[in-house]
């Protein structure tokens, strides 16, 4: 890929409107998110370079940001990312059972992707939904008060 698709650059231009004209770097997180979403959920060096060039910032800055934040992936992932919160409030209400159940059901360990490439399973730190513990996030959506039946239903409905 020689340059970013036009609809992506248009979206980045819109994001840039939020910031002073001299502060193009401020759009880097949002730009990487857009690009990652388009590229099956992960970032290649080539894509990071394109973002850096478009924002007119040093490539190293983009690598730093992509490495620092947990929502960026630098290796291929499944079509859907499952994040099970395992922090204290969820642990007190059975998040370990949720992790074990998902591991068995999907036949994967944590940080692994299912053989069909559909799901990547992960443990997450607090996702700020402790009132609905145990909970998980799949892609952009929160699922709370999890039980095995509820998990089955949620997974069934995902393409």
């Amino acid at each position, binding site marked *: 890929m020689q340059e970013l698709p036009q609809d992506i650059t248009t979206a980045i231009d819109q994001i840039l409107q939020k910031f002073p004209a001299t502060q193009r770097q401020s*759009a880097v*997180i949002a730009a990487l998110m857009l690009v990652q979403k388009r590229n099956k959920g992960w970032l290649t060096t080539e894509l990071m370079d394109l973002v850096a060039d478009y924002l007119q910032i040093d490539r190293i800055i983009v690598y730093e*940001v992509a490495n620092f934040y947990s929502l960026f992936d630098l290796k291929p992932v499944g079509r859907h990312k499952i994040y099970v919160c395992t*922090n*204290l*409030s969820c642990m*007190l209400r059975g998040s370990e059972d949720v992790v074990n159940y998902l591991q068995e059901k999907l036949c994967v360990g944590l940080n692994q992707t299912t053989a069909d490439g559909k799901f990547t399973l992960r443990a997450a730190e*607090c996702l700020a939904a402790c009132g609905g513990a145990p909970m998980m996030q799949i892609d952009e959506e929160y699922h709370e008060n999890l039980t095995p039946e509820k998990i089955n239903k949620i997974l069934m409905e995902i393409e």
Partner: protein
Amino acid sequence: MQQNQICFRTLHLSQPWSLKTYESIGGYKVWRKILTEKTPPEQILAELKLSALRGRGGAGFPTAVKWTFIKRDAPGQKYVVCNSDEGEPGTFKDRDILLFNPHQVIEGMAIAGYVMGATVGYNYVRGEFNEPLARIEEAVLEAQQAGLLGDNILGSDFDFNLYNVAGAGAYICGEETALLNSLEGKQGWPRFKPPFPASYGVYGCPTTINNTETFASVPVILEKGGQWHLDQGKPNNGGYKIFCVSGHVNKPGNYEIPLGTPFNDLLALAGGMRAGKKLKAVIPGGSSAPVLPVAVLQDLTMDYDAIAKAGSMLGSGAVIVMDEDTCMVKVLARIADFYFEESCGQCTPCREGTGWMARILQRILQGKGLAEDLDKLDSIAGNIMGRTICAFGDAAAMPVRSFLKHFREEFTAYIRS
């Protein structure tokens, strides 16, 4: 007990997040009045001071004092920033404010902009909050279309433009200077202070940062008066506070109740202990706050000063409840893992110390603890505290020290076996 009088005052209505609903209960009335009457900022600050509103994000700093750090007439751009990077383990209130009453956050930020002469506001929302972000984006659009945000608002000559910005997963970005760096498109490393954000904030300009709940409290205080707000709570602890109750209770959830409410009343609101178990301990202000054993809780009231006196802190209002079957070694090991995972790595005591503590605690949990481990944990915690750029180091150390103080025998039992 009255509930939901401030940030959750729209909660009982249908579509509580819409502009129509918000205006139906008097929303934006204060904002319109300020712009029409050109209320002197000093008058607004005086009401806020009287109200005894303190920061709802964790530190509990008096909001009116923070707002006086910025000189309204100083030349150059100034900024107002809302910290919606909710991530303190056990906290889930800002998510509900953004979901169910986003306009009140917008109104609070706009008023702050007026008081401090800031014409631009950023609301930094954690990257995982897709639904809450969508809600407040929609609310900002509604407010713009109604002429309540933008340039020359209601013909007042005052401009205030508000933008929502999403993070990308990093607990540390809830620390205000890490958040500023993140807003600037950098990795979220906290900055040295001084200079403080009031003089050197986002893009090096004077900046005021408050928590979502703090901003959302402002319109109600100005509508009903600072004295009203003060009267709802206790002296120096004015108003209502959202307590996020999680863990071993029957009805986990958010409860917006007056500051100074007895802990036992809050526990009763949350449905009491699950499965008829006995209460063992509570972390009253998010996982960074020292744990309190049941003996201390019986007479505790839920306000900044009382919880500080009891040896912990109100923090973000995240009340994590643990019953008699809870293994405190396992709980502390989990907390220590979290701080190890989220340490940004900038300061050596924190970067190395959090890993060291987490590994020792895992070792104890696996029954391989050594006789000297508890003293070692205490010493590592002591060597982190006060020796880092930001408060994260203290936040990682305090739980360790408090668990060892109150539940030492559980740890020694693990080591002996």
